[in-house]
């Protein structure tokens, strides 16, 4: 199927955040991903116009004890830097997203236009993965900045066609009055075009992440 059609279909069925994993693939590829959990969910799809640039759409929901954000956004992703070594890869990414967000907090329910940058740094080898990202998200005089730190490892290397399992610890914090850090031990599976994760945070809430490159 034509990649443009796939991209459009994904956009049409897009329904629901904010956090990104391995964010883009190779030139002319379409990458679609979704995460579903109690506190944040999203669906996004992007098209890589080069190995450094992609455009996409993201629909997401992010909530805490006293707030809920629902956003629909367009984003531009730029790979600012990549250092390729024989056994490692280091990346610095800049996401710039713009869209509309609905904020429900206490008795208020308001819509805002927003512009939100995210900076992400990641480092990986065939056995080790680490990531740190920070999103600046200010709406309605409120600060909803989100910071993520992730790290993990794989017990063994796999060949190109085998599925590689990983164990990671993901932490995530959105800066609000009632903010707390969410810790999510996660299992990751990578098999070529398919990238899946299953995690359960310390409150017992499960999360699922799926990514596929066409």
């Amino acid at each position, binding site marked *: 199927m034509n990649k443009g059609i796939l991209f459009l279909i994904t956009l049409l069925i897009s329904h629901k955040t904010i956090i990104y994993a391995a964010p883009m693939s190779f030139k002319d590829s379409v990458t679609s991903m979704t995460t579903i959990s109690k506190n944040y969910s999203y669906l996004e799809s992007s098209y890589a116009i080069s190995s450094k640039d992609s455009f996409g759409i993201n629909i997401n929901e992010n909530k805490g004890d006293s707030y809920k954000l629902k956003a629909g956004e367009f984003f531009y992703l730029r790979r600012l830097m990549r250092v390729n070594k024989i056994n490692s890869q280091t990346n610095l990414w800049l996401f710039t997203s713009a869209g509309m967000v609905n904020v429900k907090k206490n008795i208020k329910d308001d819509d805002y236009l927003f512009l939100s940058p995210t900076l992400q740094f990641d480092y990986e080898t065939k056995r080790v993965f680490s990531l740190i990202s920070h999103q600046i998200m200010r709406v309605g005089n409120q600060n909803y900045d989100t910071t993520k730190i992730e790290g993990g490892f794989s017990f063994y290397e796999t060949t*190109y066609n085998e599925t590689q399992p990983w164990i990671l610890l993901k932490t995530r914090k959105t800066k609000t009055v009632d903010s707390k850090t969410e810790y999510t031990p996660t299992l990751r599976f990578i098999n070529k075009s398919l990238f899946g994760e299953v995690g359960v945070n310390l409150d017992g809430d499960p999360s699922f992440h799926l990514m596929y490159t066409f």
Partner: protein
Amino acid sequence: MFKKKLLLVTLFLSMNIYAQTQRIEVLGMVCAFCAQGIEKSFSSDENIKDVFVNLENYFVVIESRDGKSIDEKYITTIITDAGYDIQKIEIVSDSVSEIREKYGAN
């Protein structure tokens, strides 16, 4: 002495004329999810008969259909468009299927 040189030159030339498999050492190729872009791009090229990605040893081998080497500038474009860098490209005498067999069925 002249005969030896002639023999070496002939051998060198014949390798380049008949060689059809190129081994590309790739920098940064650490996961299959990322490396699939290389395989997909080469596989979609009708001039390329076979592709083999080896993550363990960080290389890709490609074999052309017409027995001629694939242009190195084109190879470099494919690899860099997938987000990687090239350390080395060399011509090898084994076919892709022989290399695949040598390194296992991965």
